């Protein structure tokens, strides 16, 4: 009858989707994170919050470093061995952990396990007859690094503990009524134990025994061992020498260790190089405990003085007095 012009052009290109549902790629995440960020994988924490926390920790860390530097400068003005004290600020800044993505909280997570939203309490059982000086020094180093809640208890198995042992961790923090404001707990219990013991997570960790081992654990909370295996072995060597030969050895062994210390300290200001390490802490405390301070050779004496110039070693010194 009549022809009507077609309303629409014959070929309308319709884009039919080839994909039914789109899901996020679950494999994509693995490639992005580096080993120190295991904790983020369960995706519970908002990454924005994490970033904020990280910034805060970074700022706090810088503040601590500044404070340490100022303290160091103050000491250069007041103490005779001024040139050696320049190492204070450098050693404390070198204390800061090496990897660039390092965040204080994450480091704790790798050593201590996942943060369950409550205070992470480290329990140390010590015999009042053998106070662990190394741990006291490490405690004051920890307090600089983190917010630590320190408490001292006396177990019912001992009846009389001298006052200085009760106050060896320093005055209690003003905020100690609220445990969840702290990152780490350091609970020292004076108890009748044959060997120094540390307990942290009853389910996942067996107790750690021996001052050397506990010292290594606590040091790792602040900084990982140097990645260079030779350096790490050197530190371990000094730590073992300190605890086995200096503290518990015969007078011959002790003399031998003091000579070794002397020669090592002739080359470097600190035992393993230009930085303070666990080896220095351990050796200092054992030298102090064995009472060989006055009879030590010259380099050792100088090194002892520079250790004492760092405020952290004072708890140990106070106890030995």
């Amino acid at each position, binding site marked *: 009858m009549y022809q009507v012009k077609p309303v629409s052009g014959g070929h309308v290109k319709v884009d039919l989707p080839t994909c039914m549902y789109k899901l996020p790629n679950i494999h994509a995440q693995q490639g992005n994170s580096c080993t120190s960020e295991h904790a983020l994988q369960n995706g519970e924490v908002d990454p924005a919050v994490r970033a904020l926390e990280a910034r805060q920790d970074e700022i706090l860390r810088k503040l601590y470093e500044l404070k340490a530097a100022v303290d160091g400068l103050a000491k250069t003005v007041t103490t005779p061995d001024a040139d050696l004290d320049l190492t204070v600020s450098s050693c404390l800044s070198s204390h800061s952990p090496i990897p660039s993505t390092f965040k204080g909280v994450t480091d704790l997570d790798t050593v201590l396990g996942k943060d369950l939203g*409550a205070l992470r309490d480290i329990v140390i059982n010590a015999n009042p007859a053998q106070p662990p000086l190394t741990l006291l020094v490490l405690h004051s180093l920890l307090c600089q690094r983190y917010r630590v809640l320190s*408490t001292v208890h006396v*177990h019912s198995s001992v009846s009389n503990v001298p006052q200085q042992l009760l106050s060896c961790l320093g005055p209690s923090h003003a905020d100690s009524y609220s445990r969840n404001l702290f990152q780490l707990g350091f609970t020292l219990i004076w108890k009748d134990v044959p060997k120094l013991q540390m307990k942290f997570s009853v389910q996942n960790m067996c107790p750690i025994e021996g001052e050397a081992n506990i010292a290594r654990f606590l040091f790792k909370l602040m900084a990982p061992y140097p990645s260079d295996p030779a350096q790490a072995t050197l530190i371990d060597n000094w730590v073992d020498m300190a605890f086995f030969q200096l503290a518990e050895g015969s007078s011959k062994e002790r003399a031998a260790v003091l000579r070794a210390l002397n020669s090592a300290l002739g080359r470097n200001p600190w035992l393993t190089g230009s930085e303070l390490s666990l080896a220095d802490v351990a050796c200092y405390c054992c030298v102090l405990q064995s009472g060989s301070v006055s009879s030590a050779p010259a380099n050792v004496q100088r090194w002892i003085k520079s250790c004492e110039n760092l405020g952290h070693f004072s708890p140990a010194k106070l106890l030995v007095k």
Partner: protein
Amino acid sequence: MTKETVDGAMEEQQAQSKKGLKKQQKEVEKAAKKAEKQAKLAAEQQSTEEDDFAKDRYGVLAMVQSQQKLDRTLVRVKDLTPEKADQLIWMRARVHTSRAKGKQCFLVLRQQQFNVQALVAVGDRASKQMVKFAANITKESIVDVEAAVRRVEQKIESCSQQDVELHIERIFVISQAEPRLPLQLEDAVRPDGEGEEEGRATVNQDTKLDNRVIDLRTTTSQAIFRLQSGVCQLFRDTLTQKGFVEIQTPKIISAASEGGANVFTVSYFKTSAYLAQSPQLYKQMCICADFDKVFCVGPVFRAEDSNTHRHLTEFVGLDIEMAFNYHYHEVIESITDTMVQIFKGLRDNFQTEIQTVNKQFPSEPFKFLEPTLRLEYTEALAMLHEAGVEMGDEEDLSTPNEKLLGRLVKEKYDTDFYVLDKYPLAVRPFYTMPDPNNPKYSNSYDMFMRGEEILSGAQRVHDAQLLTERAIHHQIDLEKIKAYIDSFRYGAPPHGGGGIGLERVCMLYLGLHNIRQTSMFPRDPKRLTP
């Protein structure tokens, strides 16, 4: 009658008479025997009476009705030591056992936890009849004994006084016990395991409770209740030293204090009243009345129909309440310090009692830390989570979770006593002060011994306005607690406190498993006597 039957009857009669004859014969024999015996006895008695030279040195005395005032010192068994050797002393004790062996009779005489061996031997002081009399004294009778203390070469292991024994010269029974005792004391003290192994009897708890008077005489019971007395005394002494005042609160009250259906009703003249579930309200009123720090020791009545190992319907409550300056931790420190002083006092002064109880009920010694360990509720949740138990943030701890938590804390900190602080507000009573920083939590705490709760306490709401709001939130009838709210309207200091049960503390300190062992005359839904 037929011939056979007649014959039969005749035979029967004959048989009967035969039987009858036999019977009669037997009876005669019997009578003869009896007469013989009696004659013999009579003869014996005569002879014995003739020979008894010690007749006035033993016997059953007439009942002591205060006939005369004797000026005689009686020595205590625990003072019988080698120092008194060769002295002639008088003493009064119970006969624990008596055993005759030929011409001697061995007695064990007991006084509370102490016992000593005594001997009656035929000689110039004692006759055969006296030895026989001593052997026949019933167990548990009370006797007065005059004896010489003698040293022994070989230690007597089975007695508490091991270096001496008594050689009896005179023995008199003051109060005789019935021969059949409802339970034997050795059986009552035997540990359960030993009883099963060696096939010897042990006494079950119901029998012990029914015959409480005899059960309380055992060494274990004596030790338990002496320790309990020590707890009460240490509680009073420690608090008095801290400046607390002891108060007595009424037990007949007009309204149920803790709410709920767990109150006993008593008829009170024309109306009814209730027996107090806790002295809570009155303690707080005392604080508002400016007594500052108070404690009270008194009975608490809970009408809970729970037949468990740790519930009683009536028990002794030791309650503390104090006003504090700025933070309720001052209250926690005060309470935990009191508990630690009690534990120290028990550890240092009651070791004998603890060892005695451990012989029958072995357990681990009680450990604690000073100052007391204080954990927060979030930490407890984290510890339980690590152990595989999932719990909500605002959920209360169930009894198995409390026990598990107790074990975890013991494992990590090696203490049987700790405080759990900052409980969720939802599970606490309406008068608990909420946490200022986090509305989900409250300023309340629980204390645990060996994983079981012994104290529930908190900072109390001391503002009438807030108290009314909280009561409305918990849907409590304001009329019933009007007097309580009124006491805070005229200036009330911030305060807090808590209460412990004496029996539960003793039970958990000694590591016992049933609270009826630490309650002298326990009351539970099934027991009203003795």
